[in-house]
């Protein structure tokens, strides 16, 4: 069993090597994409900066606090896009009949889809997020304790799981219909846009939805309290791991979709 896990991991690394080599076949295009990723996310950042020139705090959060929140959500989102892009572009895979190919190979479907696409260009957005994060940290006077470092790591992990779950649901929908799925972007791109502010800024109703519905708040607003020193409750460090439950539900939906595909063949 353990050997099989390592085997899967080394196969995944093999996929990633091929992805990177493929991307490097078009170096100019690759660097332009990285640059455009950087510039695009820069506009969001400027929006934030202008906002805080007029208002000095939003619902009790200062500029540096919001920058921290924004950069962490950006990191979550770009890491998820980097590693789980195969599910984001799954509609094309079904349309081109490539999922049949996945099914005639003796490996898990998920491993093969993850491997089919590793989006290195998202490194642009990730880099920018790291820079903003560093700037935010230097202005927010965070004293780094082991607990806070752990909180940060669990936020990143939880965020990746959350977005992965959303991509899984999106891919699951592809088994039912290939049209009109753009509405799913509200939950991924939208989360990235609105997630630059801690969710509690949007009021109690949104907070409830983002806790018990799609648990965005678990990976930003709650653990952020601990990070910013607004609360001492160490339990907040574990909140992001609640996304595991969310991911399991999404995975069940995905399995349901796969079963439907194998019984309908289209």
């Amino acid at each position, binding site marked *: 069993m353990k050997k099989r896990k390592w*085997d899967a991991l*080394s*196969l995944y690394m*093999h*996929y990633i090597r*091929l992805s990177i*080599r*493929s991307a490097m*076949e*078009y170096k100019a295009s690759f660097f332009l994409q990285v640059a455009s990723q950087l510039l695009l996310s820069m506009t969001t950042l400027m929006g934030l900066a202008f906002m805080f020139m007029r208002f000095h705090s939003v619902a009790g959060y200062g500029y540096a606090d919001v920058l921290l929140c924004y950069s962490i959500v950006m990191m979550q989102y770009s890491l998820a896009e980097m590693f789980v892009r195969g599910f984001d572009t799954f509609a094309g895979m079904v349309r*081109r*009949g*490539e999922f*049949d*190919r996945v*099914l*005639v*190979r*003796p*490996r898990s479907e998920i491993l*093969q889809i993850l491997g089919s696409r590793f989006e290195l260009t998202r490194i642009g957005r990730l880099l920018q997020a790291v820079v903003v994060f560093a700037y935010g940290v230097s202005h927010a006077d965070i004293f780094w304790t082991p607990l806070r470092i752990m909180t940060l790591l669990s936020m990143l992990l939880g965020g990746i799981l959350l977005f992965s779950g959303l991509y899984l649901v999106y891919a699951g*929908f592809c088994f*039912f*219909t290939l*049209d*009109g*799925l*753009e*509405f799913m972007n509200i939950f991924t791109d939208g989360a990235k846009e609105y997630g630059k502010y801690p969710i509690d800024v949007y009021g109690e109703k949104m907070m409830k939805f983002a806790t018990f519905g799609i648990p965005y708040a678990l990976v930003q607003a709650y653990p952020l309290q601990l990070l910013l020193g607004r609360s001492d409750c160490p339990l907040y460090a574990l909140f992001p791991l609640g996304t595991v439950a969310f991911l399991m539900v999404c995975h069940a939906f995905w399995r349901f979709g796969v079963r439907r595909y*194998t*019984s*309908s*063949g*289209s």
Partner: protein
Amino acid sequence: MIVMEHISKRYKVARRSGGAGAAMKSFLRREHEWVQALDDVSFTIRDGEMVGYMGPNGAGKSSTIKILSGILTPDSGRCTIDGLTPWKNRIEHVKRIGVVFGQRSQLWWDIPVIDSFELLRDIYSVDPAQYRRNLEELTALLQLSELLKTPTRQLSLGQRMRCELAASLLHSPRILFLDEPTIGLDAVSKLAVREFIHRLNREHGTTVILTTHDMQDISALAQRVILIGRGKILLDGSLDDIRRAGSENPGAQEEDLDRAVANLYRRLGIS
């Protein structure tokens, strides 16, 4: 050995108009039509046979291939391939088969062919020594040595098809499914592909199941032909049986195979 017994499959085909609203609505409540893709299909294929699986478009060919390769679950009936049920033991089953979809590549587009081959080695966990042997043999038989270092996108269709064949055989499958393997190929490549499949069957005893509309493929490769139409097996026999059944004069044989098949389709009302 492949045994199909009383396999049936119906599809629900959704009817709806386009647009996002309709898509959402159809997700909740759909209007359907039922299409009988396979209707009580039974046949047995012994190890080492080469079988041509024929029928007009929409006859049920690809549904059958999908069931045999574990992609599709039938509504009823039994199917065992070397003791395994494809859709129940998918992973175990697909280790033992190779599939070539003539119109879809399994090679990575932008990188040299050999890189795709090495990934396949890892996907199928082929033993390194076995992999080297297979690669050497396939390279020699399909004349790949010049092609292996070339990115797939720079290959001609014929060159690519040779690489696709090799890619499907690196793990020494016992059964090979070929879906229109010569479509769009020039005469030289067609002959090379046929020659190779023949040799594979002769030397390794690989079972070959071939779907194609190309009667020359069938006559060059298949000892046995299974004809399907509207989801039912209509004829299971030799090429001579097709010639006889497709002849305009009773008791005679139609020499032109394309004509024989066309006559047969018309007579059976499946074209």
